[in-house]
């Protein structure tokens, strides 16, 4: 076998491992081994790349710049591994966003470097489709980079999670969209580096402006979409670099990412165009004045502790607030105390509880909550009417009955029917609305009692109240 055949064979093995890995990741039993298969394939692909020839066509020489290459890799690993090891589980969505963004950035940089190479006047003029591939890499990669950066900033709450809107926003976005298409056409006709830099700048702004109007609750769907974009940018680089591995891996991620995005949209009952263009929850100040006069029932952990000790069935409905308060361990203690008294406890998990699908399962599993107590929404809802007390901890939008009525921004979103339980205990930090930024009628329901305060503190008090009751 020739040198280049061996390299290509290794890339083929890596590409197959990525397919196997994705298949594994879609199955609860094999997910972990799927991730290891992908790691092995990646290690192989990176390892053999060091043996690529300098001159691709003649197949001679060795890669240059190995010193900066290795330094950049060591630096990347030295920053990436500790960051991803040490960050709290609650901040996972931000991390996924940032690692997706840097991937998009790398794809964009690769395409920019290729463009500079192609537009070298000493070289023959490249075919139009080659330039197009490069430009698509620049555009998609950059949008993914700047979009992910804004998603990160939103999730980290460095800026408001609410949609950021201004008059004429759609028009501005449409103009920028057309501008990037026009730029691509212009560069195809007349490939100059100056125009490419303009395209880079426009793409960067497009990424920012498209993400700004998207509300915090929808950001996970957006990250999934941007993840798919990065995959496509990588595939575009594969075309440019004549590399089948990049095409296969990038396309796999691009296609499966689009499908995954579609699935995530379904689980919150909304369509993708609706999420991208509707500035969800922005015009919700209308009802704010009315709420101030409305009264809610309040109670103390001691009283609720007594109440809980004399019921038969309790459903716990956890949400992101639980994770923020780091109260997943305390809620388990409460469940243990209740079970010791012979009370049946289960957790009703909304598909998007937490900030990403499956996020809450991960957080509760971390607190050693038995797997069989985690009941998915569709199985939990038929049981809600037999539940004596529903404890809503840090959730809000996922139990908001407004989803059942027409005309609400969350209309059609599937919810957990907490209001069917005998009583509802709401753990709230304040009367502030949830991520979607809309009022929750359930708070004013006569069945509902509120426990104000930090979820963890309140729960700790509640645990001892139940123990003493």
């Amino acid at each position: 076998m020739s040198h280049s055949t061996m390299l290509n064979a290794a890339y083929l093995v890596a590409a197959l491992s990525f397919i196997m890995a994705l298949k594994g990741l879609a199955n609860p039993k094999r997910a972990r081994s799927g991730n290891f298969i992908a790691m092995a394939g990646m290690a192989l692909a990176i390892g053999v790349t060091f043996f690529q020839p300098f001159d691709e066509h003649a197949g001679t020489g060795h890669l240059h710049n190995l010193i900066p290459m290795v330094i950049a890799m060591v630096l990347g690993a030295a920053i990436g591994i500790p960051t991803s090891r040490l960050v709290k589980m609650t901040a996972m969505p931000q991390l996924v966003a940032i690692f997706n963004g840097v991937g998009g950035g790398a794809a964009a940089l690769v395409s920019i470097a290729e463009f500079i190479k192609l537009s070298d006047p000493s070289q023959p003029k490249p075919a139009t489709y080659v330039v197009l591939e490069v430009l698509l890499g620049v555009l998609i990669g950059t949008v993914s980079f700047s979009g992910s950066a804004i998603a990160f900033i939103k999730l980290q709450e460095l800026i408001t999670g609410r949609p950021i809107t201004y008059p004429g926003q759609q028009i501005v976005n449409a103009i920028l969209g057309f501008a990037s298409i026009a730029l691509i056409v212009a560069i195809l006709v007349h490939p100059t580096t100056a125009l490419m830099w303009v395209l880079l700048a426009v793409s960067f702004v497009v990424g920012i402006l498209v993400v700004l109007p998207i509300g915090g609750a929808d950001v996970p769907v957006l990250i999934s979409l941007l993840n798919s974009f990065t995959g496509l940018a990588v595939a575009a680089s594969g075309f440019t670099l004549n590399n089948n591995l990049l095409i296969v891996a990038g396309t796999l991620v691009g296609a499966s990412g689009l499908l995954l995005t579609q699935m995530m949209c379904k689980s919150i009952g909304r369509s993708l165009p609706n999420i991208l263009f509707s500035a969800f929850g922005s015009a919700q100040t209308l009802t704010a004045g009315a709420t101030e006069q409305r009264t809610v029932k309040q109670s103390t952990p001691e009283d609720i502790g007594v109440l809980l000790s004399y019921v038969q069935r309790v459903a716990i409905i956890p949400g992101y607030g639980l994770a923020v308060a780091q109260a997943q361990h305390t809620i388990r203690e409460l469940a243990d105390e209740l079970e010791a008294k012979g009370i049946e406890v289960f957790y009703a998990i909304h598909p998007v509880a937490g900030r990403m699908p499956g996020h809450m399962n991960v957080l509760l599993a971390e607190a050693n909550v038995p797997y069989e107590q985690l009941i998915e929404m569709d199985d939990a809802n038929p049981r809600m009417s037999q539940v004596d007390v529903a404890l809503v901890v840090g959730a809000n939008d996922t139990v908001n009955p407004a989803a059942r009525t027409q005309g609400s921004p969350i209309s059609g979103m599937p919810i957990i029917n907490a209001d069917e339980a005998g009583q509802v205990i709401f753990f709230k930090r304040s009367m502030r609305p949830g991520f979607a930024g809309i009022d929750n009628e359930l708070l004013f329901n006569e069945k509902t009692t509120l426990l104000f305060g930090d979820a963890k503190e309140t729960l700790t008090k509640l645990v001892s109240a139940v123990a003493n009751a």
Partner: protein
Amino acid sequence: MLLATSSTNVDILQYLTVFALSVFIGIEVIATVPSILHTPLMSGSNAIHGVILVGSMLVLGRSSGGLEVVLGTAAVFLATLNVVGGFTVTDRMLDFFKAKPAAKPVETEVAK
């Protein structure tokens, strides 16, 4: 394998074939993913597109100086972050799924 002298039209068609097949494979392999695995799957595929590291290495290794070296080095750095971060985060997420007795796959869609 592919010689530079071969017709580039054949090349682009070959690559388009690979692309088209990959689209279908990508959709097919994850079609039945349960919702609890959406996040780990997203994170795992996030790590896989870190394969742009291979492209970044090729660009850096084949550039002969100036701006291209700067761009290539930056690309290798960012792509490495993508790879190591992506896999580590996915591994941490999946850590919580291991060795759970009765870890039955939760198929909510089918129930309807």
